């Protein structure tokens, strides 16, 4: 489903990824963990073309993205097609503040996919029921709690019927009491078999939902494996060091 080969990327002259490879198969749930600044977010942003890279290739559902320098019209079109296949949820929610909840959800289906507004609204209400905030359809993002906003952001991404979902630290800017409601929505999604990549600091959740855990450190993948193995028997010193910092006891 997602295949990354030889990804090289620098940030303002600073090399971030030297050579990164990762494959994610259909229906797989991959959780990215690692210290802040280790490259988890950048990796996700390269996958859906929000960040450019210098070398390598990212393939999503058979569509290849190359180095995005001097992007041509065809390349731009490829990025757009990739984005239609993968939904993205951001740490900061990024709901459109000038649109109602329902407006946020139907905007892209109507404008991008050409779905008629009524059909889109019916679908949107179904999604709102799924994330348990049916009553807030006509509220504006500024009137919602952080947890509610993030759930709407997930619904907004799902409304495009993506084949995979990318979550970029979805709970990091939430108050602790709201983390649970967002994780439970993601849990349901995973339960339905959605291909999912999550960058997170929620280790318990990672252990619970992941098929595979990938440990990032300083722009490298230092270890990858099933959660039991990573959390109970980490093979590398760097993984051990990271886990000892984030896990209690």
């Amino acid at each position, binding site marked *: 489903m997602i295949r990354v080969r030889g990804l090289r990327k620098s940030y303002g002259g600073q090399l971030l990824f030297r050579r990164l490879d990762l494959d994610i198969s259909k229906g797989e749930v991959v959780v990215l963990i690692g210290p802040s600044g280790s490259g988890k977010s950048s990796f996700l942003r390269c996958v859906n073309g929000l960040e450019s890279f210098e070398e390598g290739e990212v393939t999503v559902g058979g569509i290849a993205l190359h180095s995005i320098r001097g992007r041509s019209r065809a390349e*731009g079109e490829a990025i757009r097609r990739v*984005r239609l296949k993968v939904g993205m949820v951001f740490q900061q929610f990024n709901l*459109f503040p000038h649109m109602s909840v329902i407006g946020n959800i139907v905007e*892209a289906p109507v404008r*991008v996919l050409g779905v008629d507004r009524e059909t889109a609204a019916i679908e949107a209400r179904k999604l709102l029921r799924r994330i348990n905030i049916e009553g807030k359809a006509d509220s504006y993002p500024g009137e919602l709690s952080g947890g509610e906003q993030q759930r709407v952001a997930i619904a*907004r991404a799902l409304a*495009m019927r993506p084949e995979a979902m990318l979550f970029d630290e979805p709970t990091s800017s939430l108050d602790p009491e709201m983390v649970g409601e967002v994780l439970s929505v993601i849990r349901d999604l995973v339960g339905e078999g959605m291909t999912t990549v999550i960058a997170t600091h929620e280790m318990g959740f990672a252990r619970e939902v992941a098929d595979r855990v990938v440990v990032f450190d300083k722009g490298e993948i230092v270890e990858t494996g099933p959660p039991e193995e990573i959390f109970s028997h980490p093979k590398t010193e760097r993984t051990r060091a990271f886990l000892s910092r984030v896990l209690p006891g």
Partner: protein
Amino acid sequence: MGPLTAYFFRDRRIERTLGFASLFLAVVLLLAQAAPVAAGGSLDKITERGYLIWGSDAEGGAPYVFPDPRDPSHLIGFEVDLADAIAKRLGVKARQGQNAWDSLIPALKRGDFDIVMNGIEITPQRKEEVLFSLPYYVYTEQLVVRKDDNTISAIGDLKGKKAGTLSGTVAQEILTKGGGIDVRIYSGQVEPYEDLAIGRIDGVLLDLPIAAYYGKTNPKLRYAGGPIGEGYYGIAIRKGNDDLKAKIDGILAELLRSGELKRIYQKWDLWGPPQEKLTRLYREKTGFVGLEESRKAPLSTFLPALLKGAGITILISSTSMALAISLGLLLTVCRLYGRPPLSTLSTAYIEVYRGTPLLIQLYILYYGLPNIGISLSPVTAAFLGLGMNYAAYEAEIYRAGIIAVPKGQMEAALSLGMSQGLALRRVVLPQALRIATPGVTNDFIALFKDSSLVSVIAMVELTKTYSILAASTLRFFELGLIAAILYFCMSYPLSILARRLEERLKGGGR
């Protein structure tokens, strides 16, 4: 939007975003082009049009041309009477075209008027630029000084002293040639006498009709010595327009022969020995309508004229603001999202328009462009001048608004599969414009007041109406208050609107 824009923008949707702005712009430019240029023309054109446009400056224009104190929306003066008489014999009506006195000849040359008749002295230099009719008035210069100043009785006594006159006049030449005189140049004919009365200068040398109206009537001033020099006023006609000149010469001769010219001059107390050069006829004087009366007229008599000026101010400001808003948006989008040649051009436009005075931009548009064959009507030039200038400021306000929208908004929109153009149009711009709205409204208020600058290009809006009326009545204070109140009545609602918008914005959400 063709392949050209397709090249300039990375994304087809941006073109559509620009569609609205550029469509509006196109319509506006089309209208501007269609707006009739009051092109002065040949005899045929005048007859066909049904009126003769004669250029003059009604500001401080007594007794030549000035607002009737009894009905200030209506002009009177000996040149008004003369223009009517000439037009009548051409079988058309006379229509006055307003412009600053020292810009009358340039405006004639660019085709704003058919003729210029406003105390234009026939001089060799001017003859190089325009045709002159037969003289219609013999002028002399008259020195005016303060009554309590006994030291000056002739030009020679002005050595080492300050003397005032109008720019570009024969009187100015006489004073300059006098040597040792500190010559002060004024642009209106009222101000030198005002300054003389309060002692800022020591003498004023100007044409006798002006001295009679503005100097002699002031109780603090007196004539010093007799008339100096002698010359002729002529009607200026654009070069090449010889048939019009011939026709007007014939009409002037006829007016002289029939005694109509003399009757006009007598009505204005302008008939004197020098005019006998024009004709041997000479009769008794009649009183003239003048400053005394207008100084006493109730203020309400000036209101219709001022309101008309306010109307023109509103028209000019709102249309040019519409242009500024749409052109500004186009500039910002090009600057932020266009490819290099387009973005650089937009940036250059913004910097040049913000970095040069609006007044000079107006002068170039109106008086400069005719040199390369583009002649804009005053309304069009005012609209384009103000609109194009303010567009640069609006562009910067929008840019600040766009930058203030969090980056995550664009990313979220893109991640949903939107193109950059669609994301811009649906997500970023609505938020950016909301942020920009109070700034734009404030600029509208500023533009309202800046619109007074267009009086330099022959637009008679509120400020120009005020200065014309005030100069003819000397009621600078009361009329100034009224004009200021009118400006305030127009801009205050906008301030309230701006504040409301700002509050709504702070309310967040919606």
